[in-house]
């Protein structure tokens, strides 16, 4: 247990997945006491899961170099504004799909007089933009084949490179159309709030290289019938990294929509270490049993932060009975006990990944 609270060595790579709480988050130690946070998560104590964890390791927030908002989806941005506010030395990376003025107008309009609690991720982004404008810092916009961070090799330390593999131009264009449609809704006769996006064509897939260790973070990118979008665009990109990753954050919670077999054959090592979080909010939680069977057939090293199921809501049994009678289904959006899966390995590849899990996390078998 004592090892759990020890920070990684400077030459170690760490990939730690938190969630699902209010959001989910991947924390990566890219060597030399430098950290990257991808997405954000509030744990069941109401605190930022990555900041809480870093604090327990004795790592200061000033060690965070990048905060990546992989996509605008409220199961990924919980507490993002607080994270950005705390980590003053970090650059914020957003999907290039959020760069157009339309996004600023949408956030500004939708959060001007919210009047309701149901503001989707808009309120979080408004706070992020306020924080950045206070500091006069422009976000870094991620798109296919863009280097987001680079630490050159030097004596005694490994190099590090963080590259975004998506969104493609076509996906960003799609996302822009979606933003315009949402803006039009703000002007429509019946004013509405911004709903939760159902798809994430502009999600940011990341490739992280530290020494000879490579990590692929699949975000919520899905397969698209248009080869210029989704995973096909990533796989067919001319400048895609040719190395293979030994860790994969499974895309889109392991759903079949996020599964492209070529990712496993062309971008990952054999039997890669895979981590994923479930998505519990939809009609059918994912990954489904068939998804888990597929994942297990692809690697013996699959770890999930929580087995999918129906999170319980503690409340009056009369309310519970009535709510189930009125609705087709009802379930908590996020469970009370988020899990954590941590992988560590030396960046020179001289050892294998060491896995540590806690909370509700489990290995799929």
């Amino acid at each position, binding site marked *: 247990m004592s090892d759990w609270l020890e920070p990684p060595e400077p030459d170690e790579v760490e990939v730690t997945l938190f969630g699902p709480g209010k959001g989910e988050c991947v924390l990566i130690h890219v060597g030399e006491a430098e950290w990257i946070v991808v997405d954000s998560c509030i744990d069941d104590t109401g605190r930022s899961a990555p900041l809480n964890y870093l604090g327990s390791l004795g790592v200061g927030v000033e060690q965070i170099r990048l905060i990546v908002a992989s996509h605008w989806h409220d199961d990924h941005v919980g507490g993002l504004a607080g994270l950005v506010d705390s980590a003053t030395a970090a650059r914020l990376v957003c999907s290039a799909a959020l760069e157009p003025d339309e996004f600023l107008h949408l956030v500004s309009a939708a959060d001007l007089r919210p009047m309701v*609690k149901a503001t*989707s991720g808009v309120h979080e982004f408004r706070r992020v933009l306020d924080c*950045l*404008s206070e500091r006069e*810092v422009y976000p870094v916009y991620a798109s296919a084949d863009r280097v987001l961070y680079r630490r050159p090799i030097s004596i005694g330390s490994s190099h590090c490179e963080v590259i975004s593999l998506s969104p493609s131009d076509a996906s960003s264009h799609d996302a822009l159309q979606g933003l315009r449609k949402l803006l039009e809704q703000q*002007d429509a006769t019946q004013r*509405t709030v911004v709903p939760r996006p159902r798809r994430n064509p502009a999600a940011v897939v990341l490739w992280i290289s530290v020494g000879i260790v490579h990590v692929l973070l699949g975000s919520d990118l899905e397969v698209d019938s248009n080869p210029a979008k989704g995973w096909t665009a990533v796989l067919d990109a001319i400048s895609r990294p040719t190395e293979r990753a030994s860790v994969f954050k499974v895309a889109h919670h392991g759903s079949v929509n996020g599964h492209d077999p070529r990712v496993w054959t062309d971008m990952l090592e054999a039997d890669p270490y895979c981590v994923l979080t479930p998505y519990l909010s939809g009609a059918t939680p994912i990954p489904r049993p068939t998804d888990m069977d597929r994942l297990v057939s692809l690697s013996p090293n699959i770890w999930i932060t929580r087995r999918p199921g129906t999170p319980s809501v503690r409340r009056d049994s009369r309310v519970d009975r009535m*709510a189930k*009678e009125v609705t087709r*289904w009802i379930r908590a959006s996020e469970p009370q006990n988020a899990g954590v899966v941590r992988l560590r390995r030396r960046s020179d590849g001289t050892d294998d990944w060491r896995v540590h899990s806690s909370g509700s996390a489990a290995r799929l078998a």
Partner: protein
Amino acid sequence: MSVTSAETVDFGHANTVWYLNREQILGGDRHPLAFPERPGSHGYYWHYVDDALSHSSDATPTAHELRPIDVSLDAWRTERSAAQVRRVIGPIVQPPMPKIDRSIVLQRWEGRVDYLTDGGFVARLMDLTGTGADEDAEFPLDEISPMDRPLVQEGAVFYWSVGYRDSASGQRTRESVVRFRRLPHWSKADRQEADRRVARWKERLTRP
């Protein structure tokens, strides 16, 4: 104790006053409602106009000129002389509070429609009653009143409550109420403020 013909006066509150003639006061039956078997019972109360306060024998009394007769009319008569009383007015009918249905809310949520499904919609629910976790649920359109159904669209906001309804007849039934909210439209000032904020962001979020 002469009272002219019967008439009604609205006192500006819920009570209705019957001015009754002598026969009625003495027990006539021309106005059955005004004559319960025992005056002062069944929610009917006799009143009189205090002569010392009354400004005119024939004028319509004002509320402050009225004094309740809180015993039976016969008992009261023995205590008061006619000289003290300009008129007996009664009964002022105070009908028992009408029994109405009563709702008991056990839990209330604010909801946001995230997407439409076949004959229903999926929504994110935020607990307004306590500190419960956010929930997601799919509602069949059958649960929505016909008046609100046109409002069901992505991003629409609604309130949902579940509980009991106690009817006037004493029956208790379970109750689920979904009401869609009509959010106020953006005003010109709102739009200007939103544009100013965007301009501020664009000015300060300078490219490196």
